[in-house]
């Protein structure tokens, strides 16, 4: 007996062994179907008695083991059921013969046998035979179970008779010596008459009877017999059989104490179901009141025999062992077995049985001792298969007692044994399967999710080894897919624990495997149902943060203001709450402020680093998204060894609109493709992964005729799509042609252009940027690929003059302010003013040379396509940066009254701050040539302005604006009016630049007042001709010259009444004025005119007449006398700009004669 049955357990001692075997050709599946049905009859309740018979079925049993049947009767094959197929009657004799020869194999021990014949029909089948049953087919055999029960009953009858026969052996009879196979030769020539020998025979027989009783269901009898056997055998030192008797005692006690059995489900015993149920139902019956009181009476043991009547032994101690004693007895039995080398199998099986009992008793420590012992039991040369079986069973038993690590250890040993080099055909498949079973023992789970929680904690060295073994086994199995999966797992979970060398090796072999079988994300299901979840290599490279990027400024969509939906968070009823719902999960799902646009490339930035000691090539790195159809554009990257954080931008194009959620990323490293989901990577920082994708919008590309400027605008905080810069002289105008090309896929439907001058301290005159959009708009809608152009005029007019200086100068210029009518502009120019105040002083010059910058942002708002329907538009911004160099400016301005009252002279000191020669010209004026840094005075005669004709500001605006601002506004409009009238331009011939010079900046209140037409307008008409300073009215001596003074009131108040006195005088042009002209000029009527009160917008005319008595040049000075002196100050004197009248009295025709 060399092959242990590791499945044995204590209660097997009460079973009878029946071998079920096929005879001839029986299809395997059919045989096992029948076998299962037979095996379901595991327990038979015997009629006429309360006893049960338990049957153990085997379809394979070594005859060699059968020889130990006397030692322990449950090892004896007592029944044989043969299953055979017999197609025709012709085959029948042959079949029958085979059955008989099979019977002979176990012949010595068989109590009974049966043959189940399938397929045979006809007369042979009709004969009634007890030992043969005929069935037409494997499917039609309804009474197999019944047959088996009958068979078992017949076995029982034999068993019972044997029991009675042996039990009643009288002491007088010669008791045969039962022995085990290896003992036989030992007893040759032994004195069979010695007392010692007899006792030995008795003891062994007692033990045998005990076995039979146990099998026959007489538990208490069996106990009694065992006890007696122990006593007998102990006295003769028959250790092997003493051990068997003790073991029998233990078995019987175990059966008594644990009616549920000790095998447990883990042992996977075949008749588990039927037996389990039967035993449960039977549990109550076991405690037979009568039998329990069967007690041993040592006194009844006669010296020479066994008392047949066990009932007389009733009375003393209970025979059954207490649970804790069972183990003691087992230990003892095993120690006796241990004395015999040939009883190794028995010892081993006893150990296994004891462990099972201990497992039920939950005494793991002692069980482990038994197992430890079992490990050392030497069974001689074991075949590899047996070794595997032995290690597996050890592992199973360790598992049973809760020693999972030990169990895993032995399982691994078994696995290694499967592929030991001595085995010609290594069982890699079995090895792999066993290795998989060890995983829980090493607290390793093949789901990478369990490892994402934090740093790895476990038996790294052992686990790494195990994973390597799995990889190797799966490769040898011819399943590189599994190898790849395990290697990926190893890399992913144990990365921190691998040395640099190991990392290199692992990745190299991974690459080798993936060349045969690329790794993917599908779940691998093993044949036995185990699922290997995919292993995303989220550590190659390690991603630290994921950040969704906004579109570039020029492509950012904006929502139309009016259409802004109420997207305030509706989660809370409060407008503001200090309680911030701050959870990580929410943050991840948080929607990001900006939006992406369908059809446009969107970017996500990852910060990654490579933990490997070599360069890591990541291919096909792309984004995983949900919610929107998204076309990911994978990127390949190569990360240097142990790189620091490295930014990687992944791009993709959303193809539909909606909310897109970036769930993770996709990589392909070493041939393993992984989908790394962010929710499984708690270490990844992200500021939200959900973003709204709006329907597609057109895209415009902007190009300009001017060079782009590299530097951004200084004063603008916003990001600009592009900017241009240009250098201009002050007053110059530059045309900027902007070409807008639709490079998107949508039609451009609307286009709006606005501009905003950046905050600057500079005072800017006039429109900086101006354009005409009409033409461009007329070309809309703009199909993709088409373009429109827009011309923008850049006009810079800045004030380069130093303001304070100027005002002072102006005040000095007393003459011009008081305004003597006789002062001629020519004389003013000649006045040595320029010399007294040299402008060439260094400090002021540098001031003037200062280059000023002017910046503005042009915004092109455009929309179209589906995005427009949703109310979105895009902005394209163009920054315009202009460096303004001073050209000409006016250092001083003053006015001189002109000869005509409606006109005046504007005196401008023009300074050329450029380095070029420059010509300045004004409307109706001569060109003035100025050399570099030269200053000259320029006089321009201008008609006075009637500012009242300027449009009045809107009443509504007036109400809400600061009066000061209003005043400035008014000044500004007046100044621009003056400026446009003057039309001063400059021209630099050398560089072919020209521009305007603006006086706006230099005009102040005082000058303006001078330039303004007085609200009281005086018209003097002499001889029916309107007269002004420089017009010489002709008249004839002696003729009455009618003089008409007309006052038109344009002021807002009524004026007057006034008195005007006309004073004639002669100017000798040498500073002498002769007022004494009573004899030369005479008034017809009064020389004083009275003008009544003139209401606003009305006029009043007064008439008079003069008579010149001599020829000559006369001047009339109309003097004003205010009648109501009390209110005189309400009318400023400048309003009375009455012209002096120059009359040339000519010789009257002769006939008139004086």
């Amino acid at each position, binding site marked *: 007996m060399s092959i242990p049955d590791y499945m044995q357990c204590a209660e097997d001692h009460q079973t009878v062994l029946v071998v079920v075997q096929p005879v001839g050709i029986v299809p395997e599946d059919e045989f096992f179907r029948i076998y299962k049905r037979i095996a379901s009859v595991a327990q038979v309740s015997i009629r006429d008695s309360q006893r049960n018979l338990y049957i153990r079925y085997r379809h394979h049993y070594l005859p060699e083991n059968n020889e130990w049947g006397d030692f322990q009767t449950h090892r004896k094959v007592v029944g044989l059921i043969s299953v055979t197929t017999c197609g025709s009657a012709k085959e029948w004799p042959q079949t029958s013969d085979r059955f008989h020869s099979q019977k002979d194999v176990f012949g010595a021990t068989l109590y009974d046998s049966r043959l189940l014949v399938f397929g045979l029909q006809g007369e042979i089948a009709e004969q009634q035979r007890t030992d043969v049953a005929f069935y037409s087919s494997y499917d039609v055999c309804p009474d197999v179970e019944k047959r088996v029960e009958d068979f078992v009953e017949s076995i029982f009858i034999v068993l019972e008779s044997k029991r009675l026969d042996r039990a009643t052996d009288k002491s007088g009879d010669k008791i045969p010596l039962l022995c085990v196979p290896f003992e036989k030769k030992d007893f040759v020539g032994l004195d069979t008459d010695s007392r010692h020998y007899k006792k030995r025979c008795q003891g062994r027989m007692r033990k045998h009877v005990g076995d039979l009783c146990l099998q026959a269901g007489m538990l208490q009898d069996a106990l009694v017999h065992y006890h007696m056997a122990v006593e007998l055998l102990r006295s003769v030192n028959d250790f092997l059989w003493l051990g068997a008797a003790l073991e029998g005692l233990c078995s019987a006690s175990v059966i008594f104490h644990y009616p549920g059995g000790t095998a447990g489900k883990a042992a996977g015993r075949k008749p588990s179901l039927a037996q389990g149920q039967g035993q449960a139902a039977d549990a109550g019956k076991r405690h037979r009141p009568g039998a329990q009181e069967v007690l041993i009476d040592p006194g009844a043991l006669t010296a020479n025999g066994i008392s047949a009547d066990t009932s007389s032994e009733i009375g003393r101690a209970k025979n059954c062992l207490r649970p804790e004693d069972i183990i003691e007895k087992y230990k003892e039995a095993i120690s006796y077995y241990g004395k015999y080398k040939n009883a190794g199998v028995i010892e081993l099986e006893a150990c296994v049985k004891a462990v099972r009992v201990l497992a039920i008793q939950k005494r793991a*420590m002692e069980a*482990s001792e038994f197992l*430890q012992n079992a490990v050392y039991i030497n069974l001689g040369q074991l075949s590899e298969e047996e070794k595997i079986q032995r290690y597996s069973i050890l592992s199973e038993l360790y598992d049973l007692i809760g*020693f999972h*690590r030990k169990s895993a*250890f032995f399982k691994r040993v078994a696995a290694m044994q499967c592929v030991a080099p001595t085995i010609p055909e290594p069982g890699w498949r079995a090895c792999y399967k066993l290795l998989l079973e060890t995983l829980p023992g*090493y607290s390793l789970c093949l789901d990478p999710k369990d490892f994402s929680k934090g740093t790895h904690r476990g*038996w790294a*060295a052992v686990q790494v080894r195990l994973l390597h073994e799995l990889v190797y086994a799966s490769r040898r199995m011819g399943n590189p897919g599994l190898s790849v999966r395990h290697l990926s797992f190893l890399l992913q979970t144990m990365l921190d624990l691998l040395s640099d060398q190991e990392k290199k090796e692992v990745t190299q072999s991974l690459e080798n495997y993936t060349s045969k079988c690329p790794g993917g994300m599908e779940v691998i299901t093993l044949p036995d149902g185990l699922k290997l979840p995919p292993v995303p290599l989220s550590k190659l490279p390690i991603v630290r943060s994921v950040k969704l990027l906004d579109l570039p400024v020029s492509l950012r969509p904006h929502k139309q203001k009016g259409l802004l939906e109420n997207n305030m968070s509706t989660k809370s009823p409060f407008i503001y709450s200090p309680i911030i719902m701050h959870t990580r999960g929410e943050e991840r799902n948080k929607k990001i402020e900006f939006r992406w646009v369908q059809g446009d490339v969107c970017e996500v930035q990852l910060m990654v680093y490579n933990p490997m000691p070599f360069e890591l090539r990541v291919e096909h790195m792309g984004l995983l998204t949900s919610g929107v159809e998204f076309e990911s554009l994978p990127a390949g990257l190569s990360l240097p060894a142990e790189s620091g954080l490295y930014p990687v931008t992944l791009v993709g194009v959303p193809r539909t609109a909606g909310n897109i959620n970036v769930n993770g990323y996709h990589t392909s490293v070493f041939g393993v493709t992984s989908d790394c989901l962010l929710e499984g990577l708690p270490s990844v920082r992200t500021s939200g992964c959900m973003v709204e994708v709006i329907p597609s919008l057109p895209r415009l590309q902007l190009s300009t005729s001017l060079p782009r400027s590299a530097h951004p605008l200084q004063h603008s905080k916003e990001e600009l799509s592009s900017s241009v810069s240009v250098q201009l002289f002050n007053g110059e105008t530059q045309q900027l042609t902007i070409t807008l090309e639709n490079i998107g896929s949508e039609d451009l439907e609307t286009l709006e252009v606005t501009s905003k001058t950046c905050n600057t301290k500079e005072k800017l005159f006039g429109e900086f940027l101006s354009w005409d959009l009409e033409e461009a708009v007329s070309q809309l809608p703009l199909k993709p690929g088409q373009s429109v152009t827009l011309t923008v005029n850049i006009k810079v007019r800045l004030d380069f003059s130093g303001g304070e200086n100027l005002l002072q100068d102006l005040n000095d210029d007393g003459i011009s302010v008081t305004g003597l009518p006789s002062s001629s502009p020519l004389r003013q120019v000649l006045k040595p003013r320029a010399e007294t105040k040299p402008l060439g002083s260094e400090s002021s010059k540098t001031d003037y040379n200062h280059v000023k910058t002017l910046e503005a942002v042009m915004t092109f708002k455009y929309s179209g396509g589906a995005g427009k329907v949703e109310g979105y538009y895009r902005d394209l911004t163009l920054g315009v940066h202009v460096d303004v160099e001073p050209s000409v400016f006016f250092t001083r301005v003053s006015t001189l009254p002109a000869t005509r009252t409606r006109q005046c002279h504007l005196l401008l000191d023009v300074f050329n701050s450029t380095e070029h020669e420059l010509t300045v010209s004004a409307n109706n004026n001569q060109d003035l040539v100025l050399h570099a840094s030269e200053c000259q005075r320029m006089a321009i005669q201008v008609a006075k302005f009637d500012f009242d004709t300027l449009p009045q500001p809107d009443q509504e605006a007036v109400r809400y604006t600061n009066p000061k601002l209003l005043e400035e506004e008014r000044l500004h409009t007046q100044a621009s009016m003056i400026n446009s009238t003057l039309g001063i331009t400059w021209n630099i011939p050398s560089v072919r630049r020209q521009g305007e010079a603006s006086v706006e900046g230099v005009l102040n209140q005082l000058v303006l007042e001078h330039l303004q037409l007085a609200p009281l307008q005086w018209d003097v008409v002499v001889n029916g001709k309107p007269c002004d300073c420089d017009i010489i009215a002709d008249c004839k001596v002696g003729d009455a010259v009618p003089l008409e003074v007309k006052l038109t009131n344009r002021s807002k108040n009524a004026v007057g009444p006034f008195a005007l006195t006309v004073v004639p005088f002669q100017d000798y042009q040498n500073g002498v004025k002769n007022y004494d002209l009573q004899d030369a000029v005479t008034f017809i009527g009064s020389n004083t005119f009275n003008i009544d009160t003139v209401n606003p917008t009305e006029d009043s005319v007064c008439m008079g007449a003069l008579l010149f008595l001599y020829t000559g040049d006369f001047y009339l000075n109309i003097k004003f006398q205010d009648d109501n002196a009390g209110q005189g100050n309400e009318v400023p004197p400048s309003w009375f700009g009455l012209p002096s009248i120059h009359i040339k009295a000519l010789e009257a025709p002769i006939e008139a004669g004086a």
Partner: protein
Amino acid sequence: MAVCIAVIAKENYPLYIRSVPIQNELKFHYTVHTSLDVVEEKISAVGKAMADQRELYLGLLYPTEDYKVYGYVTNSKVKFVIVVDSSNTSLRDNEIRSMFRKLHNSFTDVMCNPFYNPGDTIQSKAFDSMVTAMMVQAS
């Protein structure tokens, strides 16, 4: 003396493991790992009520062919395992005990280090040298 000394965390993963024959380190990993079964069994065998008075020294966990494995569990369930050569018969229980006591003291020092995170592997030099001292003369 000892051929392998291991410190195992409450959650049964190694905090420290060192063995003398470097070339066969994995074997000791297996040995110590499987010994945890016995340690756990021994701890659970002692009733909960008795936990306070439980002796920290667990004694011989199990003998293998070549080695004897001894165990020790602190009150915080940190386990110490010492593997000694079976051939070394001079070692008596008392000596093993004193080795464990030394180990425990040294471990306490490690834990007192404010820069040590409980649960991390032990990298203390002092601890290392103490372990080395216990393992000498073995080879």
